């Protein structure tokens, strides 16, 4: 988003809520990215809740007995690794950035 001085809102008021979502913070990751093992995951949703960048999404995609799945959002993930550290069943692994994931 680029604005000239004519289009600038008065007093810097922002009219579009949550517009930062279009900004890519995913390229902040240096080496590792999280990868969720859907098989091991027990859907406790802890990783979803504790992510500082809202980068783990709950998607309505059934997997075996579960109604929901968790999905990594690599567009916003900054690669801090909190999700992998806090997962109670070690279902999240920090893998090399270069690894191709489905």
């Amino acid at each position: 988003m680029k604005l000239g001085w004519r289009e600038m809102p008065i007093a810097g008021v922002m009219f579009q809520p949550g517009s930062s979502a279009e900004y890519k913070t995913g390229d902040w990751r240096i080496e590792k990215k999280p990868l969720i093992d859907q098989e091991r995951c027990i859907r406790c949703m802890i990783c979803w809740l504790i992510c500082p960048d809202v980068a783990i999404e709950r998607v309505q995609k059934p997997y075996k007995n579960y109604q929901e799945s968790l999905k990594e959002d690599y567009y916003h993930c900054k690669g801090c690794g909190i999700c992998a550290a806090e997962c109670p069943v070690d279902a999240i692994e920090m893998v090399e950035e270069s690894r191709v994931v489905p």
Partner: protein
Amino acid sequence: MVAPKDLPLQELYAPGHRLCAGCGPSISVRMALKAARGPTVVVNSTGCVEVSTTIFPYTAWRIPWVHALFENTPAVASGLEYAYEALEKRGARKGKVDIIALGGDGGTFDIGIQALSGMLERGHDIVYICYDNEAYMNTGIQRSGATPRGAATTTSPAGKVIPGKRGGKKDLAAICAGHGIKYTATASIGFFTDYIDKVRKAIEVDGPAVVHVLAPCPLGWRSSPADTIKLAKMAVQTGIFPIYEVVDGKYRMSLKPGKLLPVEEYFKLQGRFSHLLRPEFKEELEEINREIEGNYRRILGLAGEQVA
């Protein structure tokens, strides 16, 4: 206690903000907004969260948000409360609006405490959340009134002259509870369900309420970004940051008092305390240990619990 999977799916706090990887305050804000019960307005004092979530022309907030200066966040929030009241009287709008005032530890413990005291004394229906990362992280890690004893910051460097910060941390919960308000709590992002519950209780209370939440800062604490939640948990388990509620002047511990973890385990993970583990700072470490235990026992005493 609400389970993480039962929390609302709606994200009032958007991704794409420029807070550091592994930012504790970011987690604390996101969790607090999960406890929102209806129309909510946030008044944010200057600090990391304010600066990094609203870099022009972007904003990470999906609810009305006002930036106030360091010293007047509670005052602006008070004014907003009156404004909504006036609008309702005039028939211009209907329904309750929850106002959350959000400040960092610098804006709460040092610069904004006067306005905070005024807000509590006047009895506005506002929730004040202080996200405490224990120094002025936004401007480059200067010591604040919330920095614990012995922590090295750029304005209290550990060396031959001083062993990190001299003096302890202010007891914000006691200061706020001293105003005779209905609800004060300390929380930690490491115990997230407890924290979200506390914010919800604070919102539901009619009158001012304060939640003081510990939010580790990987940059300023010089810890690994992946350890943010772990450190927030350990701070409670070592007794450095006991979590409790003060409801109508009555203290209640949020965790059953058990055996405390050795404080060295917590210090080991952080660069700002690394000097304390060296032999020349042995006395300082003992002093800190005594202080932590004394403080923990004092709070257990206030809550009427037996010392384990």
